[in-house]
């Protein structure tokens, strides 16, 4: 039997998810990053990536950044679309618009900093909202859930495959590069003290790195059961917030994506096979 996604309770949960994403966007916006604030920056670098090539070939980020009015319009469009989607999370046309705007925003920002970060969840979380039919939306949620699990598990597997988890000095070597600008600017805090301690104590750093890799691998359980999804979400969030403190890699942009695990049983697709 399918769970009807029009139920008020389910709608409320969808609203919570969109609201978390909206809060993340507002944190990014008020910290000073938006289309308008980035307008007129014309130096970008993209990698060998067919998806980025398509968007840049169409000159979408370049056009937005070269026209301040268009950049402001896109920012306003994102905020209005967020509010409309919170009001009615089942309006898939609004979700399509928001997905496109956030995707372009992510690609524009990554092009400008000349690198890639892992916060693809920033737009991926909207994929289930793109579908109108209840069945498709539920399948999309479940597909996204498996992708999220895969996303973290492969990170742990590659670390084992590359023997990164076994090297004594490996994590210390990473940490020495993480907070350098803070030391240069004499912006000292508990984080810089912990950083120095871990660089000087590679065996402790290695234990932390191993714990991090185990946390990344634990979502493997999710391939067999949905019973522990909430606990998995908490563990992944714990992993990210620890990373933020120790490595200065903030999870803003990824939190809503992880939070889908809290709702996975509510949005579950019950096929006729079961």
């Amino acid at each position, binding site marked *: 039997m399918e769970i009807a996604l029009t139920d008020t309770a389910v709608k409320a949960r969808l609203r919570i998810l969109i609201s978390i994403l909206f809060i993340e966007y507002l944190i990014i916006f008020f910290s000073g990053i938006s289309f308008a604030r980035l307008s007129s920056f*014309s130096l*970008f670098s993209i990698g*060998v990536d067919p998806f980025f090539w398509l968007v840049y070939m169409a*000159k979408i980020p370049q056009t937005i950044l070269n026209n301040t009015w268009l950049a402001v319009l896109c920012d306003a469009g994102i905020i209005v679309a967020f509010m409309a989607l919170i009001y009615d999370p089942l309006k898939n046309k609004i979700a399509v618009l928001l997905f496109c705007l956030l995707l372009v925003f992510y690609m524009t920002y990554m092009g400008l900093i000349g690198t890639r970060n892992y916060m693809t969840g920033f737009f991926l979380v909207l994929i289930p909202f793109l579908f109108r039919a209840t069945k498709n939306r539920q399948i999309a949620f479940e597909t996204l859930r498996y992708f999220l699990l895969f996303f973290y598990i492969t*990170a742990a597997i590659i670390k084992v495959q590359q023997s990164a988890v076994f090297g004594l000095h490996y994590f210390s070597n990473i940490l020495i590069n993480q907070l350098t600008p803070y*030391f240069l*600017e004499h*912006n000292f805090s508990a984080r810089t003290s912990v950083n120095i301690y871990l660089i000087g104590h590679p065996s402790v750093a290695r234990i932390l790195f191993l714990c991090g890799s185990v946390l990344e691998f634990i979502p493997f359980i999710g391939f067999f059961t949905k019973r522990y999804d909430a606990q998995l979400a908490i563990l992944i969030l714990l992993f990210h917030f620890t990373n933020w403190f120790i490595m200065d890699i903030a999870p803003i942009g990824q939190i809503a994506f992880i939070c889908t695990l809290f709702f996975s049983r509510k949005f579950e697709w019950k096929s006729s096979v079961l």
Partner: protein
Amino acid sequence: MKRFFLYRLFTSAKPWFIFCISFILLYGFFFFKKMDTVFTPYNGMFAFVNAKVDKTSTVAIKLNNTIVPYTTNLWWKKDFFENAIAFYSRFMLNGKQVPLNDYINQKPLSAAQKQFLNKRLTPDSVAVRSFTRRLLLFANKKTTNSTTLEFVKYEFTFSDHRLLLTDSTSLLKINVSNGDRIN
């Protein structure tokens, strides 16, 4: 078996099954082509082992001989400064080329195709002239016609449980008003 997601898709939602199988195959293709970051830019992060190091470096900008600070900004903006400053200095020192220029130019394509791809996928070096002025504006710093911005590489060494500043090298100086390199 009946509980497997792909099996359920196969029996109840064929288009989704085809999509998921295509995605898995496409991901496998990208993975073996060493383009594994296409769908999941995260999974290769911090996975590659380096030799033991006790040195590190960072690039900062100096305005009127004073470092322009950025670490008090929140993550995305701080990340922007950190990466964009290092990226711009590499771009200028590399003859105003980004890595994709080299990639496109070494491909067996016609001159017209290379020109088209370079124009669309790499930055316009004339437009980039405004970068330093825009960067200072982004850092809430006022500029004049005589403003010069210096890009300096600072090297640190870890010794005696401290990170010590051991060296600094001026990478380039830029006249902010026209974006020209001074040295």
